[in-house]
Every structure is written in C-alpha cells, then in structure tokens.
C-alpha cells in the first residue's frame, strides 16, 4: 500500500510541476514560426523611399439612388460594406494588431468607393471565406467583394462582375538565387507547393505528373517551406505570389509566364446592373488617369515585377 501511495504522490507532484513548466516552454517557440513572416511584413511597412498609395478624393454629386438599390442602401448607411481577404500580403491583408487593412485589392476597393461618392475611410471591410463569397453577395451581407475573385461563367449565375481590373494566372514563386526553375517547363522532378485541394495544385497534379505536389492549408506555410528549402517552388495566382515576393523581395521572386488566365473582377449583387455600370466606369476612369498604376507600384510592384497590362473592362 505504501509503495503505491508514494508513487501516486510522486506522480501528482510531477504532474503539477511539469504541467506548469511544460505549457510555457513547449507552446511558445513553435507558435512563433508561422507568425514571424506575417508580422514582419505588416509591422515593417514600406520605407519612405518606396512608392506610396495615392489618396483618393471622394467624387461629389454621385447619385445612384434611383437605379441602384445597393448604392442607396450604402448611402443611407453612410458607407459601403466590402468583402475582402485578410491573409494575402500586399493584396488583401489585415494587420492583426491594428486591424488595418492594406494591399492592392483593398486599395482598389477604396478607389471605387471614392468614385461612387462614398468615403473610403468609412468602408466596413468584412473577411469572407472563398467558399462563401456568392452567398454573402446574394444575401446582401456585403455590397461588393474585392479579393482575387476570378470571373467565371458559373459564378455569373449567382453574382455579377465588374471589371476585370487585373489579369492573373498560375505562376511560380522561387528563391531569389534560384536558377534552375525559370518557368513551368522547368519544374520536372521538383517539389511544388500550393494550397490543399486548390485549382493550382490540381493543375500541377494533372498537367505536370513528374512534379511532386506538396499541399498545405495555407500559402504562408508553403512560402515558409520555400525559404527553408523544403520545397523548390510555390505555385498559385501570380498576383498572390507577387504579394509574397513584395513582402520579402530580397529572398523571393516570381518567374515565368502565367500558365493559366484568371481575370479578377469586382463581385456585385447579380441584379444591380446600375452599380455594375458605375463600378466599371470608375475602374475605367482610374485606370486611364494613372491611379491604377500608382496603386500597383505601391503594393504588388514592390515585388520587383513590372506592372502587367491593364485589362479592358468587359461590360455585359
């Protein structure tokens, strides 16, 4: 009896000791790893010498209340509610500490808001998961969605699109000193990482059978693996890759031509044709007066990749 009792007591005291010690010791170092690159980018910001995002002046005298129910709702409310992403650096990202959003898509949204006569500073951004974008627009949870939203015929059944405002496509992100991988024809026998189940990883599996696909939940894990040399390239939309390259231009670069075409559009409620026309006009005007280019240079342009051709608006 005594032996067992003393074992039990020893066990309990060991448990208490380890329980408290282990938590702090074990938890913190691992958790830091994925966070580190993200906080670097958002915390650091762009040095003064780099191009800065232009300020958007709210256009006066815009009134769509007769034709666009969505615009009227936003005007009554005082601001637009815009769906976006929060995990794509320099494209659609949110600083976890300050809750401030930034990136190319976010600035596009602000630019359009100003052109619609609604103060961009007042915009309420909502993070919407990719799978829920159509539902959010249909239910009116958001007035518009701006976040690497590819225009497809299938999606046009449930929502409408203004734009395209950017043409992207699958590309490759590699380390800055990489010389073997220059494009899609040079990834034979290499390890290429992308998000689990995503269209890019399916393309890699189907069209490049000699390439080893690696799937993680997030692109940031892929990029972390690329930097540490566990994978040879990360593949997804070139705009997303440019965002990561812009975050760490000393170590990363985007290579090769796009090997698919993704036209990014502004997602809008399906039946609001007046709003679609107005957003198209806004994009058209801002692309022509050079604002689009300024936004690009201050965001994705930091990756070192030159601005692509601005796509023509497709009205329908």
């Amino acid at each position, binding site marked *: *009896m005594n032996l*067992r009792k003393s*074992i039990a007591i*020893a*066990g309990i005291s*060991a*448990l208490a000791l*380890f*329980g408290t010690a*282990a*938590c702090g010791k*074990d*938890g913190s170092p*691992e*958790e830091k*790893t*994925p966070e580190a690159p993200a906080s670097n980018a958002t915390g650091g910001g762009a040095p003064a010498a780099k191009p800065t995002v232009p300020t958007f002046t709210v256009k006066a005298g815009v009134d769509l209340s007769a034709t666009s129910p969505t615009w009227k709702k936003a005007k009554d409310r005082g601001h637009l509610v815009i769906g976006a992403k929060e995990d794509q650096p320099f494209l659609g990202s949110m600083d976890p500490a300050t809750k401030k959003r930034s990136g190319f898509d976010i600035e596009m949204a602000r630019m359009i808001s100003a052109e619609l006569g609604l103060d961009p500073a007042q915009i309420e951004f909502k993070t919407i998961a990719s*799978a829920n974008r159509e539902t959010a627009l249909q239910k009116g949870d958001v007035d518009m969605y701006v976040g690497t939203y590819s225009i497809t015929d*299938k999606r046009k059944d449930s929502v409408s699109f203004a734009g395209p405002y950017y043409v992207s496509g699958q590309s490759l992100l590699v380390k800055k000193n990489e010389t073997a991988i220059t494009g899609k024809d040079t990834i034979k026998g290499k390890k290429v990482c992308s*998000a*689990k*189940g*995503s*269209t890019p990883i*399916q393309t890699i599996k189907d069209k490049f059978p000699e390439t080893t696909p*690696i*799937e*993680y*939940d997030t692109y940031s*894990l892929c990029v*972390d*693996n690329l930097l*540490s040399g*566990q994978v040879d390239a990360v593949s997804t939309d070139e705009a997303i890759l440019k965002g990561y390259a812009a975050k760490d231009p000393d170590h990363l670069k985007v290579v090769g031509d796009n090997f698919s075409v993704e036209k990014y559009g502004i997602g809008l409620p399906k039946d609001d044709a007046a709003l679609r026309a107005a957003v198209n006009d806004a994009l058209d005007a801002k692309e022509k007066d050079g604002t689009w280019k300024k936004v690009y240079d201050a965001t994705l342009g930091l990756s070192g990749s030159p601005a692509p051709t601005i796509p023509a608006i497709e009205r329908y």
Partner: protein
Amino acid sequence: MKVLTDNWDLISEGFVTTLKLTLWCGLVALVLGTLLAACRVSPVAPLRWFGAAYVNLVRNTPLTLIMFFVALGFPKLNWNMDYFTFAVIAVGGYTAAFICEAVRSGINTVPIGQAEAARSIGMSFNQTLTLIVLPQALRAVIPPIGSLLIAMVRNSAIASAFNVHDLFGTNAQMVENGNDVVLVFLWIAVGYLIITLSMSALFALLEKKLAVAR
C-alpha cells in the same frame, strides 16, 4: 449522391488513407502508451519521471501544434520522412499519452495483492506486469481505450493540413471544384462514421469477450 459518384476516386482514396492512418496511429499509440504506462508504474524512478514528463508534456499541448512541430520542425533538423510518417508520429504519439493514462488507471484496478503475490513467488517486475497485472487490467481499460481510439480517428483529420490526402482533406478539392459544401461534408462525415462505428462495434465485442462473471 452525385457528389459521391463524381468524386468517387478522390473520396475512396481519402477513405483508405484515413483507414491506414487509423491502423498505424492506433498501433503506435497502443504500443507506446502501454510502454509509457509500464514506465509510470515501474520501480525505477527515472523511468517514472520520463513517463510523467512525456504524458504531461504531450497531453497538455494542442495536437495541431505537435503536428506542426513534427511536420515542419523535423525536416529543419534534417529528419526527413514522408508526410504520412510525420502524421503517424504526431497523432500516434499524442494519443499514446492518453492511452498511457487509461492503461495506468486499469493497472490500478488490479488489487495490489495480485502484484504482491506475484512478487512473493519470485516473479520479476516484467513478469508481474505482463503475466499478472496487464491481462487483468485489460478488461477495465477496453471501454476508455475504445473512446480514445475513436477520438484519434477524428483527430487524424488534422494531418490533411500537412500534405496527407486523408478523408477530411478531400473537402478542399471538392469545394474548390464547385460541389455543394453541405453535401461534401455529409459524405465525409459518413466516411468517418463507417470507421468509428465499426470500431465501436469491435470494442463492444471485445468487452463482451473479455468479461468475466463477477
């Protein structure tokens, strides 16, 4: 039904992977868990400390973190294995901590007189444990181990985040390809139920078989 037939290859492949994960992780968890339990009741103090340290460290850390550490940390230490092995190490090693505690509580249900009798006829610690105590403890630990292994099957879904194409992981591709989210998850749930309900049945059978008339 269309979701199932359209994606049959993907789902069945995922199902088999989850089944394989279950078998391997279960094996690792049971063997390692029993060894750890033996450590925790052993007369050798350092072994007891090791057992307690392992259980308290691993049991009190989120599984996601362990998986993260194994799948991303090991390669950085130049321990390169395939991702399936990483998943087995993480999920099996995690479950082992719980199995250890279940087995230990089972050991404690065996009256101390049994062990004392064994020792008094000259059996070694190993003999006492393997021939006298563990066989009797087994009866008491079947139900909790059943629960733990079922929890392990569900926990194994975490491997899908780290390049293991298991049943849960198939959802990403199906949703990406425009299948109805609700149906996709329904079929995945059915897949898991097939595995877990079979395990419940197996453990119910074991319990019945090992039961003694009291």
